[in-house]
């Protein structure tokens, strides 16, 4: 059903798929290495690129969301990541894992966005009658219904987690997001941040120690 919807949106995808069949059957991409699929894209095989988008779009959107804390912006930045991948298809070299390259682009975009909007974010205003752009919920105000207090507590805890992760130094923040929420190993995180494996480990340990100190009131 999803595939049909995608085809309705993008009729040219069919042409791409037909072109791709000359290289590989559609199911083949699942067995192929990401780097090999990128090499296919260099030769103009867009079906391979669609496969990569479907594979990585959710993790990249989530990664971006946790960096910028706004879903609309996160999706726009995630689209920009895939566009940059597409633009750089000619210069791509399979010397590092594809996901490392992908997360490096995402990290650069996220960090630049965070730097550019630092003042806007710090001066943000909360409107009690409007939905939050990050979560889609209205702010909690005094409520007499049962469970309102626990909701408030949960919201407070969530805000504290987001704020303290955001307050971490840039590299520590990126490392935590990749390690805790993207499930990446030390080597991969080190490759993205251009650090050694042991330096990445120590960076993460410091970050988690800081978070533990800051969040101990919620444990």
């Amino acid at each position, binding site marked *: 059903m999803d595939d049909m919807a995608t085809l309705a949106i993008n009729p040219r995808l069919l042409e791409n798929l037909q072109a791709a069949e000359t290289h590989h059957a559609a199911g083949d991409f699942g067995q192929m290495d990401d780097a090999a699929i990128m090499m296919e894209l260099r030769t103009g095989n867009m079906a391979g690129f669609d496969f990569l988008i479907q594979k990585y*779009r959710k993790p990249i959107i989530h990664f971006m969301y*946790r960096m910028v804390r706004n879903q609309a912006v996160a999706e726009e930045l995630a689209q920009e990541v895939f566009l940059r991948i*597409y633009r*750089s298809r000619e*210069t791509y070299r399979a010397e590092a894992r594809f996901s*490392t390259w992908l997360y490096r682009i995402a990290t650069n975009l996220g960090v630049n966005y965070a730097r550019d909007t630092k003042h806007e974010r710090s001066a943000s205003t909360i409107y009690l009658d409007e939905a939050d752009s990050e979560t889609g919920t209205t702010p909690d105000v005094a409520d007499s219904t049962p469970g309102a207090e626990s909701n408030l507590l949960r919201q407070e805890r969530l805000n504290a*987690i987001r704020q303290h992760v955001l307050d971490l130094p840039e590299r520590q923040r990126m490392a935590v997001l990749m390690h805790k929420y993207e499930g990446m190993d030390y080597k991969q995180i080190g490759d993205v941040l251009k650090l050694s494996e042991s330096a990445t*480990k120590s960076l993460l340990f410091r970050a988690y120690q800081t978070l533990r100190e800051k969040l101990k009131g919620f*444990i």
Partner: protein
Amino acid sequence: MICKKYQSAVLDLLLDPAAPSNAAVRAHIDSCEECSREFKSMEATFALLDVWQAPEPSPYFDQKLAVRLREEQALAPAGWFERLKSRLQFNTGRQFRPAMAGALALILLVGGGTVADFTIPSHPNTEASATVQDLQILDKNDQALQTMDQLQDDSQPDDAAAPPSS
């Protein structure tokens, strides 16, 4: 405070408590009260962070991306400057390593040579010590005396060979 030796292993243990490689740190944490308390607190923080869930992608994501990709495909291919910029920005840079190593070696050679030229004089003026100078003077004197003795010796046979005046 977690014992320093086990600090880096704690994260491994949190991620994969059943892994055989983490047996040593597990045993230590079980026996060390301080480390056990720290580990439990770290474990709780780790679990707390799970509360932060990201929302599902919106249904319009694919549609918007497809439109942007079509626009991108309609555009002229990127120029060499743009391609070089993206390569420098996002690649690992491994392909530049031999060139970088060569450049560094050249800098060391040129820089080292220049420094050596400044610090080591090209024509060193070696000054002999006073003792050596005294010995040299004595040697010269000795040579002069020998020459004079030789001259005197040379003049004696001539005198002997000369016919008596009377």
